[in-house]
């Protein structure tokens, strides 16, 4: 092994300083990249923590949309969607579905009527690929950007009397959502709710042409709109018992309607609905065939991350799906790490209290 003359002690000290400097720069760059030096950066942990109610999050549960119930069924594609996307579940056929009806609350035991926003988590599987989505029932999102959503949550928690007023002044899109929340009826059943993607996605057809699309699942059931008070009289857990009974009686259906943007439509801003009269395509029917309690249900362990998409569907310039993906992953990591706190049902085979002979 080639040996060179040892350095003088002065040169050696200089070299040690150099080595320490290299290590310090490396560690510093790593800390900077990880946001440890940037407390103002909106990180997934910050965004998820802001969803928690004042008493802290419900351990073991989703950090938002925590109250929900699982279902399985099929997506019956009529093939019309193939004009927009080559995704395998838009070709004609029946594809298995697992999903979750849910309420937009961090509290898994919130009474139904205290929650304004309802959601639908959905996974369609076809050809070894999945299309996961998480939709809600408002016609548009309250704010235009993930940063504004975080600021909205912060304003909601703030003890400053002007916090919300200041937020609205800076985010003129919010009052439209407030108007919807204050006037929209409460449907008596999940089966009567329409669920909307709100975010725009890029559908790519077999020829490689791209189309910006938002979609909705429109209910086949006849809506029974109720006032909040009348809905509250149905009971705190009405929606879950009702959907379980209804689906036990007959499968429930929603039509998947794809809406195609025209040039200039705001694809990047889910707080702005697209104008009426856009081309729509009815791509198929979601058939919910079986409802199961979340605790041992097939949806419990699924993160309905809306960026888990098949070939033929991808994210658009809408900044929300990426932010949601980052936050959902954080929520999933936390709740699975809190598995001890989740009320799993007793495993099958675990005997009830044995009678003493």
């Amino acid at each position: 092994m080639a040996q060179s003359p040892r350095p003088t002690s002065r040169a050696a000290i200089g070299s040690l300083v150099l080595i320490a400097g290299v290590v310090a720069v490396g560690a510093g760059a790593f800390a900077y990249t990880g946001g440890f030096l940037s407390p103002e950066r909106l990180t997934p942990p910050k965004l998820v923590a802001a969803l928690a109610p004042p008493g802290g999050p419900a351990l073991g549960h989703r950090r938002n949309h925590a109250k929900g119930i699982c279902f399985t069924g099929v997506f019956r594609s009529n093939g019309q969607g193939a004009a927009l996307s080559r995704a395998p579940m838009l070709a004609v056929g029946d594809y298995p579905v697992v999903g979750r009806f849910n309420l937009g609350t961090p509290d898994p035991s919130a009474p139904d009527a205290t929650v304004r926003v309802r959601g639908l988590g959905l996974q369609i599987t076809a050809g070894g690929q999945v299309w996961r989505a998480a939709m809600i029932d408002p016609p548009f999102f309250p704010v235009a950007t993930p940063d504004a959503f975080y600021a909205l949550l912060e304003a909601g928690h703030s003890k400053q009397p002007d916090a919300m007023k200041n937020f609205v002044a800076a985010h003129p899109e919010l009052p439209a959502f407030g108007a919807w929340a204050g006037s929209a009826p409460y449907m008596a059943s999940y089966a009567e709710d329409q669920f909307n993607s709100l975010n725009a996605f890029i559908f790519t057809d077999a020829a490689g042409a791209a189309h910006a699309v938002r979609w909705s699942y429109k209910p086949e059931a006849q809506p029974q709109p109720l006032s909040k008070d009348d809905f509250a009289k149905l009971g705190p857990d009405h929606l879950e018992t009702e959907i379980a009974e209804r689906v036990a009686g007959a499968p429930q259906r929603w039509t998947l309607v794809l809406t195609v943007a025209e040039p200039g439509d705001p694809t990047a801003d889910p707080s702005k609905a697209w104008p009426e009269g856009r081309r729509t395509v009815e791509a198929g029917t979601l058939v919910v065939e079986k409802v199961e309690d979340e605790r041992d249900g097939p949806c419990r362990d699924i993160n309905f991350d809306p960026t888990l998409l098949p070939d033929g569907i991808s994210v658009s310039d809408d900044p929300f799906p990426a932010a949601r993906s980052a936050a959902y992953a954080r929520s999933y990591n936390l709740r699975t790490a809190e598995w001890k706190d989740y009320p799993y049902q007793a495993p099958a085979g675990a005997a009830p209290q044995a009678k003493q002979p």
Partner: protein
Amino acid sequence: MNGDPMSSDSAHFTVLQRALHWLMAIGILAMLFIGVGMVSTVAPKYLPLVETHKTLGIAILVLALFRLAVRFIYGSPPLPASMPAPMKLAAHLSHYGLYALMIGMPLIGWAMLSAGAYPVVLYGGIRLPAILPQSDQLHALLWQAHVYLAFAFFALILMHLAAGLFHALIRRDGVFESMSPLPAGTRPETTPAE
């Protein structure tokens, strides 16, 4: 142990080994920075960062397994006799650690996604099978392992870098040169007479 086509001499790793080392050094550093960066942002770049992280991780796994095989075949130059025994022990242990992490981290990440019931999709739509069934407890364990071992990996790489520079600048004992990115033989004293 040496004597392969691309080799230089017994004081140096083979050209193949050095190419793998420096290629993987770039890949692994990029991997660690992408990892710590992606989990700290909700910006649109989150998605391409995650996709790159998964793809690069599998590439590193394949390269690390290949490199381990190359190491078994061609070995490594002996450490200089002048190195104190504790320093040699530290060198050996840190290299076991580096190989364990190069192979283990991608497997832990892949297993973590599998235990979380996530599809594992790489750049270009390449789909990998699940290597574990869904399990909250396994997901939690693997997630925590992936996070803590990532910091340990980065710390080990900083120590490895510091040790390499220590050999290059202070001990000047040829250890750094054995893995130097420059072709062996550029140094006058090792140029073979022609």
